[in-house]
């Protein structure tokens, strides 16, 4: 028999544990209080979420959830005090930690791991939900895409009646969720001039969700996201309510587009590059429209957004710069590569491959990434991380001369090597997997160039 502990006492205890973790430097301590609370009393999370006067908004996707949530936070922060898991701790424990820390918050804003979504939705009972995309990602951890999609379908069916849903219509699996609820906002891109010439190798949902025949794509934008139609049964992209048109990609600096919504139209200029960020902006706009935001607030918020940590992040290191783009799965890494090459292919790159649970223990995904556009421009690749040799092989068999590859498993040694190869005032491109990104930020942080993420995220 366990003795019931008051919620206040549980929270106080959990908070103290988080401070200890930070003091001990074992991590950001961002999930320690939540993990403890989760152990002590799983139902406490439900009660904490229920205390938020305006309820919660939840974002999930394989790619872009951290950025989408950060954009939504820019839109909403003028009006509401937010409880936002901005450091990317997106499992149930991370959300619990955010709730513990959010003393006077009015509205919860949570990015949620794809696999954790059903549990989070049932506990947090959100007012608004935005679902972005499903790509193959860490099959050793998430299992097959179809399985994740099936769990999402059940979770959406179980949402409270008043929850407002927004989905990406350009993703066949996600767009089909709109059928589950009337009044769903469906967002997508409508600009064939920004489309790719063909479906990428990493396109996943290429076959009709209804009948299994291959889709015809009128336009494919990012992976399998696009304007699709099944030639056999006619299943096609649902009508869009929130749309990006007239997209202009401006290298590494920005991307602009015309945002068309039920409450008006406006040109938006994003200060981060890439078509994938247009999708993130559409997701943030749709979610916040469902929360009652005005178009001018949405545009101002999206335009004031810079970068979520580690995702297209620029860090000064003495007289040189780092440009860090997280890579974690084929679709996301393809967009990172595409963005970098469009900004001018680099001569030197540091690519870091770790295989901890958060990175995916199965590193086979690097062979599904189209790294080839980087290869002609590279004079030197610094392969690093726990699986540096595997990454080096990916480039060797992709056509890069093995003599142009340094294999340095130590992240610190690889960073120094990359900086040494970068001319003064130059910028070094770094593509790390998740745990390598955290470790690299810590290394530059220890040299005094960047604040730890649990401070900068606050």
């Amino acid at each position, binding site marked *: 028999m366990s003795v019931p502990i008051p919620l206040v006492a549980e929270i106080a205890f959990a908070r103290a544990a988080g401070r200890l973790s930070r003091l001990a430097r074992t991590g950001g301590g961002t999930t320690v209080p939540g993990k403890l609370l989760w152990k002590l009393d799983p139902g406490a999370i439900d009660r904490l979420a229920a205390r938020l006067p305006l309820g919660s908004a939840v974002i999930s996707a394989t790619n872009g959830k951290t950025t989408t949530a950060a954009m939504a936070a820019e839109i909403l922060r003028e009006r509401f005090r937010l409880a936002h898991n901005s450091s990317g701790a997106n499992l149930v424990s991370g959300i619990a930690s955010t709730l513990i820390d959010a003393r006077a918050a009015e509205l919860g804003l949570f990015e949620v791991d794809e696999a954790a979504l059903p549990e989070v939705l049932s506990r947090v009972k959100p007012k608004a939900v935005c679902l972005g995309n499903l790509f193959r990602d860490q099959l*050793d951890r998430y*299992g097959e895409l179809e399985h994740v999609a099936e769990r999402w379908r059940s979770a959406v069916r179980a949402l409270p009646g008043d929850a407002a849903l927004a989905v990406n219509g350009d993703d066949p699996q996600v767009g089909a969720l709109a059928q589950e609820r009337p009044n769903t906002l469906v967002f997508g891109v409508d600009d064939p001039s920004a489309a790719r010439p063909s479906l990428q*190798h990493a396109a996943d949902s290429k076959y009709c969700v209804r009948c299994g025949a291959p889709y015809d794509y009128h336009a494919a934008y990012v992976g399998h996201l696009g304007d699709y139609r099944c030639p056999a049964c006619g299943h096609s992209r649902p009508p869009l309510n929130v749309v990006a048109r007239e997209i202009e990609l401006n290298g590494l600096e920005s991307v602009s587009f015309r945002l068309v919504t039920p409450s008006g139209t406006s040109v938006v200029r994003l200060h981060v590059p890439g078509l994938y960020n247009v999708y993130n902006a559409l997701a943030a706009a749709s979610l916040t429209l469902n929360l009652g935001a005005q178009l001018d607030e949405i545009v101002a918020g999206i335009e004031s957004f810079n970068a979520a940590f580690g995702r297209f992040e620029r860090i000064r290191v003495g007289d040189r710069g780092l440009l860090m783009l997280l890579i974690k799965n084929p679709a996301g890494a393809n967009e990172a590569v595409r963005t970098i090459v469009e900004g001018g292919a680099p001569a030197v790159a540091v690519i870091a491959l770790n295989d901890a649970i958060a990175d995916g223990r199965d590193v086979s995904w690097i062979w599904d990434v189209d790294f080839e556009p980087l290869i002609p421009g590279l004079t030197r690749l610094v392969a690093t991380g726990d699986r540096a*040799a595997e990454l080096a092989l990916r480039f060797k*068999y*992709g056509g890069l001369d093995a003599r142009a590859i340094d294999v340095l498993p130590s992240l610190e040694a690889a960073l120094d090597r990359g900086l040494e190869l970068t001319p003064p005032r130059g910028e070094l491109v770094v593509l790390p997997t998740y745990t390598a990104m955290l470790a690299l930020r810590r290394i530059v942080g220890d040299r005094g160039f960047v604040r730890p993420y649990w401070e900068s995220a606050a």
Partner: protein
Amino acid sequence: MKIVVGHLYPDYLNIYADRGNIAVLSRRAAWRGHELEVHSVSVGDPFRPGEHDLLYVGGGQDREQALVAQDLVAKAAGVQESVAAGAAVLAVCGGYQLLGRSYRDLHGSDLPGIGVFPFDTVAGETRMIGDVLLECELEPGLRRTLTGFENHAGRTRLDPGAQPLGRVVAGFGNDGESGWEGCRVGRALGTYLHGPLLPRNPWLADWLLAQALAHRHGEAPELEPLADELETEAHAVSAKRAETRGGRRR
């Protein structure tokens, strides 16, 4: 010399970076002055027995696997004829299962296989996921190791007397119990190991190339050694992973 690879269902069965295996075969052939052509053979395409020196079948998700299973049955006689005539085969994960006799999923429904390999597969409740280390003896007296990653719900049970690809040193293998992994029938190999398999196990890539050349030209040539330092390092790291965190350690 020319080598023709038939890549079965590359648009459906590609979940575990199967194109990495193809890239390794192509480059290692080219570095020795051989020309490797890869022909895609997918749903609805004709299969002409004898046309290919090496057949490759990759892994797919359950949905894609079901989409190709019926088509493969229509090609069964041709594939069997090719294998009997000495074409080499590498079948990985889902492709490996489809080349057995049958696959029964969790709901009890059966997906037909084409019986190149003498086994049946039945899906279990839990997936077997992790790094794997095998010991193989494809040539008598020559023991070598393979490393890879497995992720499968299927339990594959070889017929009595069937030849496995290797002995499990660390990992689950065919069924998590028998201690065997994969299956071999002559020049045809099937395995659950992806990673992809060939970049970190270049000796197996060379073995397959030699078998394919033997199919076309009558006798397996001696392939000159290549500088495999990166491959050796990747193999060592992967083997260590299997030893420290593979599914089932012996």
